[in-house]
């Protein structure tokens, strides 16, 4: 299973691996927001927690259909299915790779983008904490969606339709933690709930994803 992780990380940083595309998308998305809502720093500061979370979520969404698609096309999935690696392990590793290549960089750049959007000072620790706790859930849910749609041609749009409603609780608690932080309030409760959702998805969804993969490989 470690071999899977190592290979996917290597593939991600090689040419054509798409590493950094999500980051660029996050940056562009955040840059476009002031053009849409106007440059007034007051408004930007108020909506910045939601915008940052929404941007991170959409950036995660962008790379989901690559999770299994390439391995499906070149036969790797068939071969892994005949190997000693359980499908659940494969799904968990894929989610982990997606988080390392997409979620983790988003956490790292989010404070810089928060400054662009005039995010209030007390919110920064909450922003980092909530993204760090929440993005693994985004990756795990996305991996499940990717496993459902792996056999479907042009499944990208369908994948978004399936995954976005599942993102609702994560988005709510994540953005709420940051906006409470921005108001100078204690945001431990939404953060704890967010962590609960993340732990739950990490525990359960690899099994659901593995079941979907087995159906699709049949």
């Amino acid at each position, binding site marked *: 299973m470690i071999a899977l992780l190592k290979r996917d990380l*290597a593939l991600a940083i090689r040419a054509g691996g798409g590493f950094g595309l999500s980051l660029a998308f996050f940056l562009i998305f955040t840059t476009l927001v002031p053009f849409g809502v106007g440059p007034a720093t007051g408004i930007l500061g108020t909506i910045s927690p939601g915008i940052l979370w929404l941007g991170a979520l959409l950036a995660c969404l962008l790379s989901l259909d690559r999770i299994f698609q390439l391995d499906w096309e070149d*036969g790797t999935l*068939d071969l892994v299915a005949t190997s000693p690696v359980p499908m659940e392990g494969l799904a968990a590793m894929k989610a982990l790779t997606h988080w390392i290549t997409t979620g983790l960089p988003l956490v790292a750049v989010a404070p810089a983008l928060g400054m662009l959007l005039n995010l209030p000072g007390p919110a920064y620790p909450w922003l980092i904490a909530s993204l760090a706790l929440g993005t693994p859930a985004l990756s795990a849910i996305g991996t499940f969606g990717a496993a459902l749609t792996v056999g479907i041609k042009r499944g990208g749009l369908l994948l978004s339709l399936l995954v976005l409603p599942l993102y609702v609780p994560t988005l709510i608690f994540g953005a709420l933690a940051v906006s409470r932080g921005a108001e100078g309030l204690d945001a431990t409760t939404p953060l704890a709930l967010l962590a609960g959702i993340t732990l739950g998805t990490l525990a359960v969804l690899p099994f659901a994803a593995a079941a979907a993969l087995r159906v699709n490989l049949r």
Partner: protein
Amino acid sequence: MNLTVTDLSCARGSTQVLADVSFTVAAGEALILRGPNGAGKTTLLRTLAGLTPPLAGRVDCPPDAIAYAGHADGLKAQLTVQENLEFWAGVFASGTITRAVDAFDLEGLLDRRAGDMSAGQKRRLSLARLLVTGRPIWCLDEPTVSLDTENVQRFAAAVERHLDGGGSAVIATHIDLGLPAARSLDVSPFIAKRLRADDPFAQGLDDPFAEGVEP
């Protein structure tokens, strides 16, 4: 290390393609599957490999004994030969790749990216992958596609070495590999194209309005 297939029926999607296939492949033996296109050779191999559940019958072999290679070779163009092989060694937890590299004369190509290799070299690499799995029973689907005569001979020699070492193989192919220990099995007599028996919508098909009839 025998592979025994008893009265196996296999299906692709909602269609049964083969019925009552039985054969045994002993260690050191190769079975060449023959039959027209679409006969069900690929489906049979996928069923042997455990990817598709059988409709009926049994596949008896030791657990984790089958190495499957389909049309797609599972190689990553961005990775070098060595990285590709080491990945599969890791997935199959089989240790070293040196034996596979030696057997298929890949020493000089180790640092070449798989995407930069010729079709024949890629085939050699994917065959080397079979050795890396360390599994005794090879299930190969059209392994000689895109190989010239020289490389076909090289492939045949590799299979022969595998058989001499106590392995066995089931190979779907149209060409003559010239393997001495090979038997042929024509799948044509087993072709049984019909809707699968466990599909309740296939019952009473002679009467399309059967639902109107009282049971």
